[in-house]
């Protein structure tokens, strides 16, 4: 019985989605953080998801026939990249951060995109919670076997 694996899988999904939600929160919070140079300005951050490969792992183990069925187990965040979209330059000569030409740099955060991302992340999180809940019920069922 490998019901315990489901907890790991759904748990990794929840962790990944919460990292995604975290970057979204950071992006939205910093959407208007002005700066005078392109190097200093906040850049939108995006997590990179990838399926946890376990081919090498299971080759090494040899393993039980049925244990080696799934190709991957869960999801991992490979890293967080900074968006290379062009910065938002606004002409605000009165701004304390304005450069000598009167431009202020604003982050390349797209609020609409971030909101959509936020909704998607919270839905996916919810799905993983449901999966974990179902696995819990199945496990509790097994404990009552023969009673």
């Amino acid at each position: 019985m490998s019901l315990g694996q489901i907890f790991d899988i759904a748990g990794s999904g929840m962790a990944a989605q919460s990292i995604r939600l975290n970057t979204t929160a950071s992006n939205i919070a910093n959407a208007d953080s002005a700066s005078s140079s392109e190097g200093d300005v906040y850049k939108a951050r995006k997590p990179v998801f990838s399926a946890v490969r376990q081919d090498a792992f299971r080759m090494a183990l040899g393993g039980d026939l049925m244990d080696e069925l799934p190709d991957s187990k869960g999801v991992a965040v490979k890293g967080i990249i900074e968006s290379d979209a062009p910065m938002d330059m606004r002409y605000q000569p009165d701004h304390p951060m304005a450069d000598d030409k009167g431009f202020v740099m604003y982050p390349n955060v797209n609020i609409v995109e971030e909101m959509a991302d936020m909704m998607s992340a919270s839905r996916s999180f919810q799905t993983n919670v449901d999966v974990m809940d179902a696995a819990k019920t199945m496990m509790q069922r097994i404990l009552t076997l023969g009673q």
Partner: protein
Amino acid sequence: MTISFSNALGIHEQALEVRVQRAEILANNLANADTPGFKARDVDFKAILGDQMSAQGIGGALKMDTTNGKHLPHGADGGAEALLYRTPSQPSVDGNTVDTQQETAEFMKNTLQYQSSFQFLNGRFKSLTSAIRGE
């Protein structure tokens, strides 16, 4: 005369096991619903159950005989070919083929089927218990 547990429990023990494996695969699909390039997987339940049953010598699944060391076992190291890729109904731009709704529905169905398998298995155990007690 001995009581054979595998005869008494029948197909349900294997069925329950396969349901758990399927739940694992579907959970993995759902966890990777936002992973670019991830391809949704699923198992051919009938094929896997047949494999398990013939491996344990139960049921009428016909097995191909290997009379030479160079013969490949039929169906065999098996599991791998029973694990298939799902045909996407609405492929997405990033190459991901997980349809969350479909996977959730399958997962739910699988859970219910698990519960019915469990119910049958439990029934078998109960009849065994009453047979042993002789009440």
